[in-house]
């Protein structure tokens, strides 16, 4: 008997659990909904007022039980709910909705650390690959200020094309080596979105553009008269712009690909070798003032930068639905 009563008690509890589980889930959702409602911004003026929504809901309920509504209107005509269903259906609604809600790529108030590797995109004669790193701070979700730098020394590489062309046509193409550059940048993030991979896995991404200015250290490589000429590194002002895409793996880690154009006025080797001697009796070919071309060359160093972006702090808390 005792076992039987214990079994009854257990079954009673199981029944409670079974009935409670949906209730608990509902409670949780309800709490979440209440929280969201509490935190939700005030509806826009053109958003449907709550009273109307209640009236419509009441009418729809009434449709389900028209006899009761008619009965209510007959008993209390003053409080009878009268809704023009067609007018209500044709009403223009403009609620605040966002196509991409709760985006992963929230940036405001966060730092971005961006290590990358770069390759030259537009120089067939010499490549300037190298590592680089960027640091940005986002004052707004779409606006950041920061710095970046590249290191090239010992990584400059002449191409086979340069060798073959010089040899076949007997021409010397002035080439330069890069040492480093640093830039201060302003970044704009106008576009963001999300992609589904074969309709299974969703990832977020954004597009960004940036402009900056800084300094770059370069030197010509002696090709025309390597017996006499050696060049030291010199620093030039640089400026430029670029754009890129970030694909977010987590809320703080993304892969990035950026195309960047660093522009500067470059000193090139003089294609002519000075003849004669100077006042000290030394060959003019050994006078460093004759080694550089008289005019500076406007240079675009376009490079692709592939790397990672790490956002700090790692997480944040949404305060609004958006």
């Amino acid at each position, binding site marked *: 008997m005792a076992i039987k009563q214990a079994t009854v008690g257990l079954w*009673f509890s199981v029944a409670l*659990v079974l009935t409670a589980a949906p209730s608990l889930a509902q409670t949780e959702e309800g709490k979440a909904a209440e929280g969201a409602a509490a935190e939700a911004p005030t509806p826009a003026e053109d958003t449907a007022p709550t009273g109307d929504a209640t009236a419509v809901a009441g009418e729809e309920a009434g449709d389900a039980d028209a006899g009761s509504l008619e009965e209510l209107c007959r008993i209390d005509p003053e409080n009878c709910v009268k809704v023009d269903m067609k007018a209500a259906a044709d009403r223009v609604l403009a609620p605040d909705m966002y196509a991409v809600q709760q985006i992963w790529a929230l940036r405001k108030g966060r730092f971005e650390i961006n290590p990358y590797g770069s390759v030259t995109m537009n120089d067939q004669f010499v490549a300037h690959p190298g590592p680089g790193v960027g640091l940005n701070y986002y004052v707004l979700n779409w606006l950041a200020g920061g710095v970046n730098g590249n290191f090239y020394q010992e990584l400059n590489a002449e191409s086979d094309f340069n060798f073959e062309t010089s040899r076949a046509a007997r021409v010397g193409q002035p080439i330069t080596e890069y040492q480093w550059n640093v830039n201060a940048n302003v970044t704009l993030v106008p*576009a963001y979105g999300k992609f589904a991979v074969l309709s299974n896995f*969703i990832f977020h991404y954004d597009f960004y553009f940036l402009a900056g200015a800084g300094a770059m250290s370069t030197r010509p490589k002696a090709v025309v008269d390597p017996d006499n000429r050696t060049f030291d590194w010199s620093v030039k002002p640089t400026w430029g712009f670029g754009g890129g895409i970030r694909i977010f793996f987590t809320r703080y880690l993304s892969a990035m690909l950026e195309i960047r154009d660093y522009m500067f006025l470059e000193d090139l080797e003089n294609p002519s070798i000075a003849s004669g001697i100077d006042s000290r009796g030394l060959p003019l070919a050994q006078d460093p003032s004759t080694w550089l071309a008289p005019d500076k060359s406007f240079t675009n160093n376009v490079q692709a930068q592939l790397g990672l972006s790490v956002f700090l702090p790692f997480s944040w808390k949404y305060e609004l639905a958006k």
Partner: protein
Amino acid sequence: MKNMTSRLALLAGLTAGTIVLASAPDASAQELQITGPLAGAPAVRRLRLHRDGRFDIAPHATFTLLDEFRRNVLFGARANYHFTDSLGAGLFGAGGISYNAGLADELQTKAVDGRDCADNPNTLACRRTAVSLCRGPNCLEESQLGSIVWMLAPQLTVVPFRGKFSFFGAFFMDADISLFLGPAVVGLNERAECTKGECADNFKLDSRVTGTATFGLGFNFYPTDYMSFGAEFRATPLSWNTSGFDIAGPESNFPDDAIDTNDRSFHFNPMLTVFASVQLPTAINLSD
């Protein structure tokens, strides 16, 4: 006593039930995640199927990138039929024009016009470049430098990435990223082959048709249900002689004073295509 035992048993049962109940919230929440209404649901519902069962006809302009001597601009069309929203097949065709890159103009000015080898054939530079550089105004463009004339490529298109993007949160557009791959037939203009002893007097362009593969990546944006625009990055790797120079001989000997297949070098031939596209039929389907 019996009642007491029964009550204790009932109390024990209720206590056990209460313990189960107390531990239930987490368990039930977890259960909802596993077997709830969203379990097994697709990541995207009511997706506009811009490609599924539709033709896609796209006039385009294609620009070769990283050109050494001649830049090519090809005009044509791409036509695809998509069996599903993520798989299609079609044809890419293009033909066009070419013009000198900066290096070609510089060579023409300094190495051809500046040396004037027609009147100074015995200078060291003219003797050493007799096989590799033509003589006369605009001769590089007219008789020596290679260019891509046309291209035809049946191709398979796979669309693994489908989504949308927003511009400042105010303007939204459907978008996808496609990958394509296929064989390609390419028509080239290339310096005509010649053998040792005759190349110095033999500067002329010859047509050549070669087979290769083509592949790439496309970004597609859909402002309406039946129109799109976008850009494709395409590579069409093949070996050809872009310069018309004698750069190598058998077993990499240089110079062999001949223009032949040894002077061809491998290029990926990267290209950028911009296009506007129409999807037919114009009506669009939605996914579940």
